[in-house]
């Protein structure tokens, strides 16, 4: 809690401050720079290191990071194999990207709530600068991911079933050709619900978790014994949410690739 600025620091202003994004632009063309920068830097760091590790990977005895990431990636790949029975080279990399990226961004939640905002305020010299450093608490990010997944899903539908096959499925399942409009409506609701639930689940969990951290941050010195159990518990949520996002994506892809 940086208490030395002009206006009186109340619990409300502390919370609001922590839940405000670092914005640039106006109207629709507003960019949340904190989300964009943090998620981009985390992604670049993780995926470029992974590319370097993969580039150096040997088929001999795997060591260190190669061993670790082989384990993670085989785990993800096993989920893909168990659930997705098609043969699309995009699915495994998509699932891996989602799991690793979401996990790393969620893990930002474990950094103490005031640490990165303080660093950003000092780096910019603006001590009122809002800085929301857990990118997955920004619905823009979760929606961006789920909409991308949705687009790939629709694309797969067309690719696997063909235009005719997909249209036939949309219009005849589940009630048969006579109730085509109802089928179409059901299908639209079903498919639109997928990205919405996907993104809101991740956003909601991380936002709520972050909120608890902020509230814990309010209680002064007593936050230490409180923050520790919540952090430990949060490790579970972080992993679980990354896993759920990945798993549901695989399931949606598998549904898109199989006829009903």
């Amino acid at each position: 809690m940086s208490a030395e600025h002009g206006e009186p620091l109340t619990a409300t202003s502390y919370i609001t401050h922590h839940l405000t994004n670092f914005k640039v632009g106006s109207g629709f063309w507003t960019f949340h720079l904190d989300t964009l920068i943090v998620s981009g830097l985390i992604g670049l760091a993780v995926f470029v290191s992974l590319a370097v590790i993969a580039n150096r990977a040997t088929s001999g005895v795997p060591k260190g990071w190669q061993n670790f990431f082989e384990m993670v990636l085989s785990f993800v790949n096993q989920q893909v194999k168990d659930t997705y029975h098609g043969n699309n080279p995009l699915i495994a990399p998509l699932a891996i990207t989602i799991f690793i990226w979401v996990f790393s961004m969620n893990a930002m939640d474990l950094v103490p709530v005031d640490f990165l905002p303080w660093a950003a305020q000092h780096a910019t010299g603006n001590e009122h600068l809002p800085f929301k450093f857990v990118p997955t608490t920004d619905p823009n990010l979760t929606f961006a991911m789920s909409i991308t997944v949705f687009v790939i899903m629709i694309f797969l539908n067309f690719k696997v079933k063909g235009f005719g096959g997909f249209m036939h499925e949309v219009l005849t399942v589940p009630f048969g050709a006579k109730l085509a409009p109802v089928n179409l409506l059901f299908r639209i609701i079903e498919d639109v619900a997928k990205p919405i639930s996907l993104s809101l689940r991740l956003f909601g969990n991380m936002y709520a978790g972050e909120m608890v951290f902020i509230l814990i941050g309010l209680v002064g010195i007593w936050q230490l014994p409180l923050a520790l159990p919540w952090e430990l518990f949060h490790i579970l949520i972080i992993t679980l949410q990354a896993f759920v996002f990945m798993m549901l994506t695989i399931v949606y892809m598998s549904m898109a690739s199989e006829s009903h």
Partner: protein
Amino acid sequence: MSINATLIGQMIWFAIFIWITMKFIWPPLQKAMADRQQQIADGLAAAERGKHDLELAAKRSADALREAKDRAAGITAEADKQARRIVEDAKDAAKVEAEKVYNAKLAELEQEAERARSALRERVAELAVAGAEKILRREVNAAAHADMLSALKQEL
């Protein structure tokens, strides 16, 4: 919470990361893992083959050992037989030799006896003649009675 252009930026990030994973991360790692799996499978197969070879070699060595034992037994039996034959032969040869020596000795002894006998006969004849001479010194003419004396000598 407000949806704005950040969405577009995040989609771009997401696409970039999917592309990196798809292009630079997953294929090489997958290849390394598949290669390793192949190597392990090959190693296990080689181990299996080695075990099989070992079993074969053990069987072969046991066979060779048994054969060698059989042959050794055969050789021993043959040697025994041969030894017995040699002993037998030697016995036979010794018997023959002994007989020969015995016969030779016997013949020699007989000759000796014959010689002694003939010498004795000569002597007895001489003595008889000498005795007769002494008795008949005066009236007996040695020359006149030589025929009778030699006939007597023959009868002895």
